[in-house]
């Protein structure tokens, strides 16, 4: 069990209320590398803390000093430069229209990439080989090509085809749709892969075609599980719309550059737009982080722990090569096997004795195997006493010269007969 799993297991087990939840999680996280410190260590930590704080403050002060006294330029902290960057006119004529353009492109792009992602995600899961290959090729291609190249290409293409005013906007939207859509397609694929196998089997058993099963049974469940990842993707989209400023799309960044070049205070206007971008993205990130908890309340636990929230990682499509590599189909509808699976022979010769040797130590009455006891006669699962064993063998005509420790093999033979 990894420490992350241990953490979640412990926190969910311990803490129903929210404040408690967080305190508990924090202490677990802290205890990974250092123990609850004693008085001396605490004094030392406090000392380092003060030094660290001083160093950070000094660093910030140095940066501000550098801003105030650049080697050749003017004082960047003076109100003359900040005033035009923060005035009401700047907001009304530059930041807000720019922000609107940014949001417009991101909303269209996220909707488009959902559609693209679901279509190609299903395409990659269908049993028709040609469809699967084509959608895999499209998805892999769109993931590998930098968004900026897509944007420049579509921008020039659209301009060449004659739409002049909307060229930059549609180039931004389309390239974001292609890239993020391919990421969403991967999310759909892994989300469906995380569903219990029985969902698909049940749908097929009801007479649905594989496509029908994906569309009405599997993908809807996967979509709920991947909602947090989707929101993280929204952050990526929002950040990537800023690339549009390179192809002259008048988004927030472009507007703040224009404002800055009018008053020679680009640094200040960039700071303002950076803060705007940061606030929006940060709120979305927090929502994405909190969402799984909330979702758990609204859905029954159909899906295994969703694809690890990819906030950690640059490209959310990393649905973790590792995690995928370690994935295997669990027997018995997803229940963890009771005993360690050391036996790598044929399943046909899992004998009673072997089963007992491995199950004795971890008895779990809720385990599916226990169900056997309610439907099978006792003699199947009960460990035989030596006397009984002897009796059974004599009935079947076994020779008695095998030693008693070898009951495993003996009962295997029994089964075969």
């Amino acid at each position, binding site marked *: 069990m990894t420490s992350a799993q241990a953490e979640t297991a412990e926190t969910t087990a311990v803490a129903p209320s929210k404040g408690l939840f967080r305190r508990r999680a924090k202490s677990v996280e802290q205890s990974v590398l250092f123990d609850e*410190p004693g008085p001396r260590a605490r004094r030392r930590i406090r000392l380092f803390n003060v030094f660290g704080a001083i160093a950070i403050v000094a660093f910030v002060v140095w940066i501000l000093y550098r801003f105030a006294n650049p080697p050749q330029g003017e004082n960047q902290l003076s109100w003359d430069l900040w005033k035009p960057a923060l005035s009401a006119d700047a907001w009304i004529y530059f930041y807000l229209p720019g922000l609107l353009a940014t949001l417009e492109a991101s909303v269209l792009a996220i909707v488009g990439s959902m559609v693209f992602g679901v279509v190609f995600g299903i395409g990659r899961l269908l049993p028709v080989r040609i469809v699967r290959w084509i959608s895999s090729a499209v998805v892999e291609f769109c993931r590998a090509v930098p968004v900026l190249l897509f944007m420049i290409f579509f921008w020039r293409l659209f301009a060449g085809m004659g739409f002049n005013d909307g060229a930059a906007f549609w180039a931004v939207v389309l390239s974001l749709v292609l890239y993020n859509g391919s990421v969403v397609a991967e999310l759909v694929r892994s989300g469906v892969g995380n569903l219990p196998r029985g969902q698909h089997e049940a749908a097929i058993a009801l007479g649905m075609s594989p496509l029908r099963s994906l569309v009405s049974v599997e993908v809807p469940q996967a979509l709920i599980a991947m909602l947090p990842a989707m929101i993280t993707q929204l952050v990526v989209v929002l950040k990537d719309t800023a690339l549009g400023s390179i192809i002259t799309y008048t988004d927030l960044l472009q507007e703040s550059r224009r404002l800055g070049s009018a008053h020679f205070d680009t640094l200040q206007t*960039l700071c303002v737009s950076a803060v705007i971008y940061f606030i929006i993205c940060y709120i979305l990130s927090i929502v994405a982080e909190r969402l799984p908890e909330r979702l758990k309340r609204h859905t029954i636990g159909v899906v295994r722990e969703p694809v690890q929230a990819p906030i950690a990682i640059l490209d959310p499509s990393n649905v973790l090569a590792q995690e995928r590599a370690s994935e295997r189909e669990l027997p018995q509808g997803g229940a963890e096997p009771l005993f360690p699976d050391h036996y790598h022979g044929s399943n046909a010769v899992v004998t009673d004795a072997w089963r007992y040797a491995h199950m004795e130590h971890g008895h779990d009455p809720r385990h599916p195997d226990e169900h056997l006891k309610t439907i099978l006669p006792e003699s199947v699962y009960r460990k035989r006493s030596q006397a009984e064993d002897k009796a059974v063998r004599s009935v079947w005509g076994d020779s008695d010269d095998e030693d008693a420790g070898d009951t495993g093999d003996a009962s295997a033979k029994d089964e075969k007969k």
Partner: protein
Amino acid sequence: MQEMMTLLSNYNVPAAFWVNVQLTLWSALFSLILGVILVMMRISPVGSLRGFAVAFVEFFKNMPLTIIMVFMLLGVFVQLRFQFSSTFSTNFYWLAITGLSLYTSAFVCESLRSGINTVPLGQAEAARSLGLSFFQTAGLIILPQAFRGSVAPLGNTLIALLKNSTVAAAASVATETSTLMKTMIEYNASMIIAVFLIFAIGYVILIIPIGLLTTWLSNKLAVRR
């Protein structure tokens, strides 16, 4: 095909890709160093350092790369007059590397942190009970295993970094691929699709081996538990 050949003979496309690869390698190096420092700060017992690392990572994670690049050019260079070199192109090159490194280090830190999550608690406890200090525990026990566990996310970060190196165009690095592509399209508007395909295929060729290598490495290096 014929078009692509003429384009390739008229323009030095490999040189442009080489600039991107160089940008990627330098930024990978610096962001790896910075990322390791950040992740050490993040897991340290000292509250102020931890707070700083969290703030740094959150800031760069939620900031568009383009704005960082433009800031490097218009803010740091034009207004603060900060320069690495008196030659314009060298200066822009290093400014772009600085921007990319700062941005990527946040993601390197997060990848490493996800790697640390794969190290069982018992490892740290065992290290503590042997009497190792924080730096010894982190440096000898936790980080080596965390590195092995975070090969996959680090590889993805590297791929994203290679793709992000095209954004150096926003910091006026004129010799890299996206700028060259724009120039080529301007002069060969009729062959726009061929131009795009040259660059797209170039990136696919660069990225697929990285992906395969990281998948192979992450399977080979992952600590089996």
